């Protein structure tokens, strides 16, 4: 497997949202606008890369029986670090994402990649896998956010180009499911062709 495909796999073949269908909670909840989706994606990317690196480093020393608790402790540490850093240096981002930052701990993508990839591969490959999956997640969330923001608020990245209120349902949970479903269909249709 080439190093480059480690990153590109995260976008198409192993796209966390549209193919692996992991991490649905933040996907549905934080994509009310393109900016929120992007910020959530980047926050997850940060945790994913660091936890992948550390877990691939320590996994040979960790006995099988306790490997899940150890991974969760590592992930929770990075999430808390991220939360403190955001609170200190980007308080506005912290305000919007709020509750969903601590919930990255239980995001299946992070533990999933630790289990499926990082504990069997080298540090370098694990870091690349984290970047790939993280960027794939960020891209998916941003796209869902863009679609929901256009339909629900008539704007894109906060820039309003359709006057009026938009279709309210797309800002709320039902719209999240609808957009996710249709995007998943579209994505898989084009991904299979390639």
């Amino acid at each position, binding site marked *: 497997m080439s190093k480059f495909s480690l990153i590109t796999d995260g976008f198409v073949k192993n796209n966390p949202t549209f193919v692996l269908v992991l991490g649905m909670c933040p996907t549905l909840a934080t994509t009310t*606008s393109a900016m*929120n989706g992007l910020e959530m994606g980047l926050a997850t990317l940060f945790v994913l890369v660091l936890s992948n690196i550390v877990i691939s480093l320590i996994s040979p020393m960790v*006995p099988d029986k*306790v490997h899940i608790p*150890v991974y969760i*402790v590592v992930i929770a540490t990075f999430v808390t670090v991220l939360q403190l850093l955001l609170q*200190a240096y980007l*308080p506005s981002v912290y305000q919007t994402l709020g509750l969903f930052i601590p919930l990255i701990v239980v995001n299946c993508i992070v533990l999933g990649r630790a289990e499926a990839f990082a504990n069997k591969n080298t540090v370098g490959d694990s870091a690349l896998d984290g970047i790939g999956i993280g960027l794939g997640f960020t891209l998916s969330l941003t796209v869902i956010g863009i679609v929901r923001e256009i339909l629900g608020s008539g704007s894109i990245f906060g820039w309003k180009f359709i006057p009026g209120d938009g279709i*309210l349902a797309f800002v709320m949970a039902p719209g999240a499911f609808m957009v996710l479903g249709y995007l998943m269909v579209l994505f898989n249709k084009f991904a299979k062709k390639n």
Partner: protein
Amino acid sequence: MVLCLTGVCLVCAAILGGVNALTTNPIKEAAKKALVESIAKVLPEGGNLSDAQSAEGIDEYYVSSADTTVLAYAVKSTTIGFGGPLTVMVGVLPDGTVYNTSVLAHSETPGLGAKCTSDEGFMNQWKNFGPEKVLKVKKDGGDVDAITASTITSRAYTVAVEQAVNFVKSLNKQEE
């Protein structure tokens, strides 16, 4: 096995302790900056600001005065919104006119109630909201334009402003 888990937990706790120590001051400063900015936004320019003072029915208040004349009060007022506490800084002139308002903290639904921090129509109506106007949303027979589809947030916001205005009125009564 036990040793490994204990070791990992110890290292992680040490890292968290370090990061916490490093970020405590920036977090405090960021919160203080947000507070100072919101006070500056809701008060008329000029005047010396007092320290925070606590009072019943509101969180705290600041007095802006020139010499011995009180120019305005900045009142921090909290109510329960749709998703949790909603904290608003309200600038009130001594005659009970709302000068301006600013949201300090909220957990309203993004795209709906959270518009109380971005919806210009909603935010601008608080500028010079006179004491003759009724502090209730229009649905309830008042003069406040609610945010579309976010009546609960708009009501909570209105109550927060009302608490602040009533507090200033009670201050005036004491002085008389």
